[in-house]
């Protein structure tokens, strides 16, 4: 069994696991850190972005590089459509992948890169919410980028990265970066997904069984259990033990694995989501009361549902209930609608509401009461008439490199009464804001990441007791930003062997299959005659015709051959007893000759035969006289035990 690590970002994982000749891809996350090196895409011309100064590395005068890099403050940005770092394609040919298992909608953004134009022919499994909401995220991304076409594609800069200032000089493998896929690729890719339910047993070629178990992280999020009759591998991706809107995490299913692969732990290891939510509510209240606007860059799904619910309540309490909330995304309407029809995937509190029948999320009611207004874009019909300040705006993209958020920063960035609140943990907010600096708008950092922190993860490992624990290497060392917080690691667990892995590695996992399973059918089973060879241990020979279909082995009765069942002899032949039996049968001229060791030869001169005896073998040598041989055979058998 082998594990390949194709993603550099443990929060956007992508692995290949090979086991029993099945090649599985575990998640296909797309690392988007590369975005921060690009200039934002604005669909109305922006003075600031257009007039940014060109930058050239010192002692370089390559004319092809001219205009590709722009400078703002101490940062350098690439002026080109943004590029993404897809999963590594050098270790494995994607056409060989049999199955892709997707854990949650945040871990599938690279799917079109894997399945389209690569010869991929496998199956893709995901839960219904993962498919439906994942579709929204993929579509939003494509719309954001396609609505701001750029005519020049910069490429020369990749040859000069080493001469660029931080952080561009540390960009990860920029030569492998790719342009985003198009909508046709998205549709083709998603059409390959087969929807599965939690705890649905999925058979893979009869060789393996995979089961998605609720992971509590977001709508439809799952951990995967991959098993045979004898082995169990658990792949743990985005998981949460906190109580929010999704179905709670299913611990039980993950227990006692031979191998536990753990990725996608929290990106905010030192802050706690509840207190961050508290800070957020206070900041929003203060800003609105001060007449300022709040800008919350976000994904169109996920924690944002909890924010609508929580903020609307808090705004009521702070006396700013009149300020509207705007939710702007090309998929805002779909996201609001889908979240309210996925009752079976929600926490029991939310689920119980549909029995009333009421919508599980209050945002349907907020929309009805005009507290929450949603638009596809800021230039959509009705937005300009509905727009009123002060207000709270939720919009994408959290990287601040495209989407309507770019326009809101232009609009509100120079007013210190306004506030931009970062709630999504994916991007460093300082880097996200860098191309817009200097800004007057207040900045609040309240990243809410509900996935497991290190304390929760270590506790979980203690509970689950995997034999082998496989984690990204970076989880075995304190975070780069907090090198002295040595408790922020996956520690050593006495019951589990720890194996770290990193990008580009192929590691062997210690799982040697020794046993399989066969099904013994009635007629064969009836012929089993157990012989107790030791207390509590019985043996019996089994013979049957083997029927193999879909990797399921059945032993059925041999229909036409009426042969006696084969038996085996065991134990040691006692020579005295043997000689006695010979003489009882009238063979009295036996001459015993010891050949040393425990080898003894018995010569039967009159019969022209000899019998060679050893501890574990007896050899009867005689002429073609079958009568004699049968007689000798019977005597040997009487002196041995058989099963």
């Amino acid at each position, binding site marked *: 069994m082998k594990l390949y690590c194709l993603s550099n970002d443990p929060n956007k994982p992508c692995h290949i696991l090979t086991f029993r000749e099945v090649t599985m891809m575990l998640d296909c996350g797309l690392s988007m850190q590369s975005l921060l090196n690009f200039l934002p895409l604005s669909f109305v011309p922006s003075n600031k972005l257009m007039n940014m100064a060109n930058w050239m590395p010192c002692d370089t005068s390559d004319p092809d590089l001219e205009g590709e890099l722009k400078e703002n403050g101490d940062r350098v940005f690439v002026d080109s459509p943004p590029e993404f770092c897809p999963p590594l394609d050098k270790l494995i040919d994607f056409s060989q992948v049999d199955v892709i298992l997707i854990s949650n909608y945040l871990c599938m953004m690279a799917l079109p890169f894997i399945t389209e134009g690569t010869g991929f022919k496998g199956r893709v499994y995901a839960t219904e919410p993962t498919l439906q909401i994942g579709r929204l995220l993929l579509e939003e991304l494509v719309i954001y980028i396609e609505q701001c076409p750029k005519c020049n594609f910069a490429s020369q800069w990749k040859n000069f990265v080493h001469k660029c200032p931080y952080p561009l000089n540390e960009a990860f493998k920029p030569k492998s970066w790719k342009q985003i896929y198009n909508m046709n690729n998205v549709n083709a890719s998603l059409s390959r997904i087969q929807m599965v339910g939690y705890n649905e047993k999925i058979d893979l070629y009869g060789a393996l069984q995979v089961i998605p178990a609720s992971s509590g992280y977001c709508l439809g999020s799952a951990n995967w259990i991959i098993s045979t009759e004898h082995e169990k591998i658990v792949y743990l991706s985005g998981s949460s033990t906190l109580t929010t809107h999704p179905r709670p995490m299913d611990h039980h299913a993950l227990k006692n694995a031979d191998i536990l692969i753990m990725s996608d732990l929290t990106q905010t290891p030192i802050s706690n989501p509840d207190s961050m939510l508290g800070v957020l509510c206070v900041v929003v209240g203060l800003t609105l009361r001060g007449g300022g606007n709040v800008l919350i860059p976000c994904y169109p799904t996920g924690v944002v549902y909890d924010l609508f619910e929580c903020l609307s309540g808090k705004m009521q309490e702070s006396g700013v209930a009149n300020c509207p909330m705007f939710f702007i995304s090309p998929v805002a309407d779909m996201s609001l609608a889908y979240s309210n029809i996925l009752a079976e995937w929600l926490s029991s509190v939310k689920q119980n509401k549909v029995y009333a029948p009421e919508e599980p999320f209050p945002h349907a009611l907020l929309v009805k009461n005009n507290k929450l207004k949603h638009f596809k874009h800021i230039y959509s019909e009705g937005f300009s008439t509905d727009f009123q300040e002060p207000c709270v705006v939720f919009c994408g993209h959290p990287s601040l490199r495209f989407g309507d958020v770019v326009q809101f920063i232009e609009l509100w960035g120079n007013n210190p009464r306004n506030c931009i609140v970062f709630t999504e943990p994916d991007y460093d907010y300082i880097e996200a804001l860098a191309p817009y600096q200097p800004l007057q708008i207040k900045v609040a950092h309240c990243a809410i990441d509900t996935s497991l922190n290190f304390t929760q993860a270590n506790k979980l490992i203690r509970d689950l007791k995997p034999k082998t624990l496989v984690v990204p290497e970076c989880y075995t060392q304190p975070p780069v930003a907090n090198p002295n917080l040595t408790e922020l690691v996956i520690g050593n667990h006495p019951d589990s062997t720890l194996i770290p892995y990193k990008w580009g590695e192929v590691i062997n996992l210690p799982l040697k299959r020794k046993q399989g399973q066969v099904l013994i059918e009635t007629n064969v089973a009836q012929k089993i005659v157990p012989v107790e060879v030791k207390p509590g241990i019985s043996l019996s020979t*089994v013979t049957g*015709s083997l029927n193999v279909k879909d990797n399921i082995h059945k032993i059925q009765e041999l229909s036409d051959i009426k042969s006696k069942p084969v038996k085996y002899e065991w134990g040691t032949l006692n020579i005295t007893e043997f000689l006695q039996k010979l003489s009882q049968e009238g063979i009295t001229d036996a001459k015993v000759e010891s050949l040393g060791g425990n080898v003894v030869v018995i010569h039967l001169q009159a019969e022209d035969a000899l019998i060679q005896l050893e501890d574990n073998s007896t050899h009867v040598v005689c002429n073609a006289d079958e009568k004699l041989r049968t007689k000798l055979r019977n005597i040997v058998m009487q002196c041995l035990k058989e099963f």
Partner: protein
Amino acid sequence: MPEIKITPLGAGQEVGRSCLLLTMGGKNIMLDCGMHMGYNDDRRFPDFSYISDGPISAFIDCVIISHFHLDHCGALPYMSEMVGYNGPIYMTHPTKAIAPILLEDMRKVSVEKKGEMNFFTSQMIKDCMKKVIAVTLHQSVMVDNDIEIKAYYAGHVLGAAMFWIRVGSQSVVYTGDYNMTPDRHLGAAWIDKCRPDLLISESTYATTIRDSKRCREKDFLKKVHECVDKGGKVLIPVFALGRAQELCILLETYWERMNLKAPIYFALGLTEKANNYYKMFITWTNQKIRKTFVQRNMFDFKHIKAFDRQYIDNPGPMVVFATPGMLHAGLSLQIFKKWAPNENNMIIMPGFCVQGTVGHKILNGAKTVEFENRQIVEVKMSVEYMSFSAHADAKGIMQLIQHCEPRNVMLVHGEAAKIDFLKEKIQQEFNLQCFSPANGETSVITTPVKIPVDVSLPLLKAEAKKFSGLTPDPKRRRTLHGVLLMKENSMCLMDVDEACKEAGINRHVVRFTSTLNINDPGPSLTTAHKIHGYIREKLPLCSVIFSEGEISIESVLVKVEGDDDDQKSVYVSWTNQDEELGSQILNLINHMGKV
């Protein structure tokens, strides 16, 4: 041989009051717990005293409800709260949401309108629903350590499911009511090749092969249109949820297209609520509705308005949907009494009616109907029956059998004569045993044993290697031979040497070598070749290999020695396990030498 036992407490050779008792692997499972709508007395509920005279918790491991129709869940609060059952009850989420509403509705009609006694209360319905565990499609649910259940989409009403149930190596599929053709708001039933030991299928429409859906819809719309054109009133008795939504979608689009003005009413009180359930469980509807629900919710009707009792006597044409569907009580019956004497009016019965109901009577051509208070109603209105009930027809049932490949079939929830017809068809076409027990009668199905046993991989691999090394022959069977090592908690099949090692004993190999002399001048190799050819001819099924002067037949060795003169010594050697073959070959060569 292990057995599966099924006893219908209801739905055995009848329609209505589905309730089956399933016993396998020492577990007792109740499949559906319905009430009979045609009776007002004890006969409406299944006879639970068959199970026990008191509470039945100790005898039933779990209850599974297929869908929210009262003939499948109507007796549930009676069983759990009045007879006494505290174990788990499984149903899908939509069923869990909708069933209590229908139960409450029925309770009101029975107790408050008809004054029936010995009926469950509202609180009992609530307490009963607390025992319900909701399941999602395809989710594998372990009821306890032995019982596993899994729901499949049945397409009969919102949330209707078929259930696969496994205990040990035995398995059963219970269909409840299902529909194999997609309709306006639901998809078609689907199941995988799960090869159960027994498929228990409904057979409401066992003898019908329904004409195309489109024709029936056109026919329905034409009749409604004609009736309102001449100023008549159309009554359509329906259940609150299910067919009603489908017919509403149908009329709504037709009214829109034809620009009709006659009012359509939906007389339920829970119209909006009912439609809300459809909105929230839209993932259970068909592909088309799911795709478009964000833009346009199919269940927001423009032309269909809420009904008020006062409208009964309004002049002019109208179309009214009213509950209940079988015309046995409530508003639909009240409207019927008013409108029946007018020949301009029409009643369309869109579903099956159980015996004893007014619906059943008029469908059988009754021209007058007598009620409890000696009121006699003349039926002059035209009576139309349109099979909109989403049940599988004969073709659909056969399809389902084909899909899931059961070893045995049982037909329930159908009339005896119709069941017999279909039974014969199934036996002919699939060569399957087909059962149809009556209520209280037990069918016993024996199932093959399949004991799962661990097997050592080297044993399997050695066999596979040997098999793939042979020349391909479709007739050749693969044989597996090994030794089963049985310990207290485990069984493992392995190679004999591995087994002896595991068991800590020494195998003792007994070998025989017989020497015979034959006269055959020439080199010994030539003699060996002769023997080789002879054995191949005599034992065509054995694998015979000739190499370096030695012949091996399976594991029997034959060797020839001797100079070029006449006399040759032939050694035949085998282990005791090959005694039969060894002595046979010895005899063969002996015989050859004498020829």
